[in-house]
Structures are given as structure tokens and as C-alpha cells.
């Protein structure tokens, strides 16, 4: 192999890592002794939405958990947000804080209110402190009702950020202070997506985001997904839904732990 081709190959690898939020090549994941993913290839660019379909047990959720760093890559290669999935150790998992993952489980606390759940997610992400510092630093020094509201909100743990996220997901304001265990499944789904959105992840991993939602809820979630992609985030949506929003998106079908066809 010539020096030029070596350099070219190196640049190709670098380009791959820089352009793609997710790049998996022949990825294998074992759950116990059985391969849940067996040679999956997929790449997702920043700002792109990719839809993944497949029958139950095809490996869709495992694919998302791999991209979230919640299960280990057994064989093959993979990078997520520039990090090599083969790297071991907690330091190599810093990128997980840049991933938003909505799974089958909502990861909500039933005895906390909708708003408290979102505030907790926001506080864990460290974004509450960041936004507070940013607002103290400038931009909010002026008077006015809005400035006062924002200063108050950051001093009390960014409730307005949480409230805004819940409003964006069209959860009625009267339900913001309701315990999550008293909300319907669809309302809980909206709260869970609000918990993801307040972290402003660079990679959204959404497992059946429309589950339990009515038509308005589905449309609202589709809008939030589209906004995230427009803002530069990569989105992988696992869904069985057939809708206008997904008609023109890249779609991949998983079966038996590998993709049936190459993505267009």
C-alpha cells in the first residue's frame, strides 16, 4: 500500500468520525450468549433523522442501547459522537451525557410531579447551572417582566426551562404539578420526551416515541423531532408508525440482528 493511499485512508477515517454522529460497521452485541445484533451496519449524519423498523426481537432496542452506551460492543467497529465504542473505562463514556435516550421505559419517578421530573433531568445534565451562569453573565440584566421571570427561574432550579419543555410537548399547565403516576400513559410519554429535550442532546435515540399518544400527540412529537434535527442533532427513531413525517426519511429494517438492506 502506497503512502498516499495510507494518508487517504487516514483522512477517510477522520472524515467518517467527524461527519457521522453514529457509524457502526459489522456491530455485534451479545445479550447473554445470544447475539442481539449480529453484524449491523448503519451511519447517521448530524442533522439527519433515520427511521429503524423491524419485527419484535429484531434488535432495534439493542441498537439504540448500543448507541447510548448502555450495552457493550462485542465485535465490529463503531463510533458515536466521535467516540470509539471499543474503548473501555468510564472516561471513554463521557459522550453518553450528549445522548438523549427515550426507551420503552419512561425513566420517570411516579411520586414526583411532571415538572419535578424534568427539573431533575435538567439538574442531572448540569444544564441548569450552565443556563443560570449564562443568564447571570448577561442578556438578562435588563428589567422587564421576562427578565425577572427568568432570573427567578434559574435561582429556583430552572423551573421555567422545565415548564417550557412541557409546554412544547403540549402537556397542559395544570398537569405540570401533578404526580406522574396520576398521568395517562400518553402524558407520561410527553413528560419523558421533555426530560430528553431539556438536555439538548446531540444524538436522540427514540424507541417508539409515539407509543400511547393520540394523533395530536404524535404530531407534536414529530415536530419536536424535526426541530431537533434542524438544530443539528442526529435522530434515530425506532417505530412501527407509518406517517407522512417518516415517508421521506431514510429507513432501515432490522431482522435477526442485522439490517436487511443498505440504507439509500
Amino acid at each position, binding site marked *: 500500500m502506497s503512502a498516499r493511499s495510507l494518508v487517504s485512508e487516514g483522512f477517510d477515517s477522520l472524515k467518517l468520525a467527524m461527519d457521522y454522529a453514529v457509524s457502526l460497521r459489522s456491530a455485534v452485541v451479545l445479550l447473554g450468549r445470544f447475539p442481539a445484533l449480529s453484524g449491523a451496519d448503519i451511519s447517521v449524519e448530524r442533522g439527519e433523522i433515520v427511521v429503524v423498523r423491524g419485527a419484535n426481537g429484531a434488535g432495534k432496542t439493542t441498537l439504540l442501547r448500543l448507541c447510548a452506551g448502555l450495552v457493550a460492543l462485542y465485535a465490529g467497529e463503531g463510533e458515536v459522537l466521535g467516540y470509539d465504542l471499543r474503548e473501555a473505562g468510564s472516561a471513554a463514556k463521557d459522550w453518553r*451525557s450528549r445522548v438523549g435516550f427515550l426507551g420503552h*421505559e*419512561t*425513566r*420517570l419517578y*411516579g*411520586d*414526583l410531579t411532571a415538572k*419535578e421530573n424534568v427539573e431533575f433531568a435538567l439538574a*442531572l445534565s448540569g444544564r441548569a447551572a450552565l443556563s443560570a451562569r449564562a443568564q447571570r453573565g448577561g442578556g438578562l440584566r435588563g428589567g422587564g417582566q421576562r427578565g425577572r421571570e427568568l432570573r427567578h427561574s434559574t435561582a429556583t432550579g430552572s423551573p421555567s426551562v422545565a415548564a417550557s419543555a412541557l409546554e412544547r410537548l403540549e402537556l397542559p399547565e395544570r398537569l405540570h404539578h401533578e404526580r406522574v403516576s396520576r398521568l395517562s400513559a400518553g402524558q407520561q410519554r410527553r413528560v419523558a420526551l421533555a426530560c430528553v429535550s431539556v438536555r439538548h442532546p446531540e444524538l436522540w435515540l427514540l424507541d417508539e416515541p409515539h407509543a400511547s399518544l393520540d394523533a395530536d400527540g404524535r404530531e407534536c412529537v414529530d415536530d419536536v423531532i424535526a426541530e431537533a434535527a434542524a438544530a443539528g442533532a442526529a435522530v434515530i427513531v425506532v417505530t412501527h408508525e407509518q406517517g407522512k413525517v417518516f415517508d421521506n426519511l431514510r429507513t432501515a429494517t432490522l431482522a435477526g440482528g442485522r439490517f436487511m438492506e443498505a440504507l439509500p
Partner: protein
Amino acid sequence: MIAPLRAVALIAGKDLRIELRSRVVFNHVLPFAVLVLILFGFALDADSDALSSFAPGLFWVAVLLAALLAIGRSFALERADGALDSFRLANISPVAVFAGKALAVFVQLLVLEVVLGIGIVVFYGASLEKPGLLVVAGVLAAAGIASAGTLYGVVASQLAVRETILPLLLLPVLAPVLIGATRAFGDAFGTVAVNGWSWLGLLGAFALVYTTFGALVFGPLLEEG
């Protein structure tokens, strides 16, 4: 990524807020522990001399049984809807998760000890002679139980038989706490002729070892989940 101490406060605060709101500790764990004290009274035929002399041991058996419920509950909160993954996704230090969960259990155990302490005075007629020893022993024992309980709680929470395996894993491990705390309380209540202060070393060492060990291995255990 947030500072570890901030994460500890957030996690402990969240757990305590949930407990205050759900009132599981107040409405279920505390009545259970008091009921255990009363049943011991029936078992010993309400013999006031026997009850008074066995009060420290009965107190700590009741605390350990009630602690199992509190620890199981602490991890049920996280496992019920996959919430434990939130800490991994937020890249929260496993040491902070361990410390936050243990701190919340520690606070609940202190409340439990206060209520049961009143219980053995009222039901068993125990009289306090060394309150300082009682407080220090109670705090050290609670720290040890909370640390070991949080460590074995996360192990048990990953198993299908979590409800039944936790007592089997945890109770043998807590035997040194039961022995040391019973001796110290025995001296504090004047029921045994021992130097209770000398047992504080065992309680302190247990708390230190399990806090250190828990902080070290909690990360891999969390990732296994």
C-alpha cells in the same frame, strides 16, 4: 457533567422527597418496625425484666428488618421504570450515585431509630443512662447499614428474585453491626456490664469499610445493570 457533591445532594434530595410524598416509610416501614417490637413483647410474655434487658438486641433486630424494607424500596424506585439508566446517561459519577442513595437511606434509618428508641422506652420500660453513647452508636450503625445496604441493594436489584435475595445477602453481612450496636446500646441502657464505647470502633470500621468498598465497586455494578 455536574460536580459529585451536587449529584449526591440531588439524588439524596430526590429520594427523600419521594419518601416524604409517598409516605411509604411513615405509613409502612415505621408501623412494621413498631409492630415487630410489640410482637417481641408478646413473645416474651410481657415480662418487663426480660424485655428491659433484651431491649437493645430487640431494638436492633427490628431496625435491621425495617432497614431491609427501606433499602428494597430505595432501589425499587430506580428499577421500576429503568430510572437507574438515567444516571449512566447523565454520566453521573457512580460514587455520587452510591453516596446519594446511601445518604437517603441513612436519614430514613435515623428517623426509624428515633421512633424505635421511643418505642423501647415506652413498651419495654428501658431507661437511658448514657445518651452520648446511644447517639454515636446509632449514627455509626446507621451509616454501616446504609452503606452495606446500598451496595447489596444494587446487586439484588439486578436479579429477578430481588425481594427474596436481599435479606439473604444483607443480614449475614450486618451481623457485626448487630453485635456491636447491641453491646453499645446495652451499655447505654445499663442492661449489660460492658464498655460500650469500645464497640464503637467495630461500628466505625464497618461503616468505613463498606462506604469505601461500596464507592469502589458501585460503578461496575451499575454498569452491569
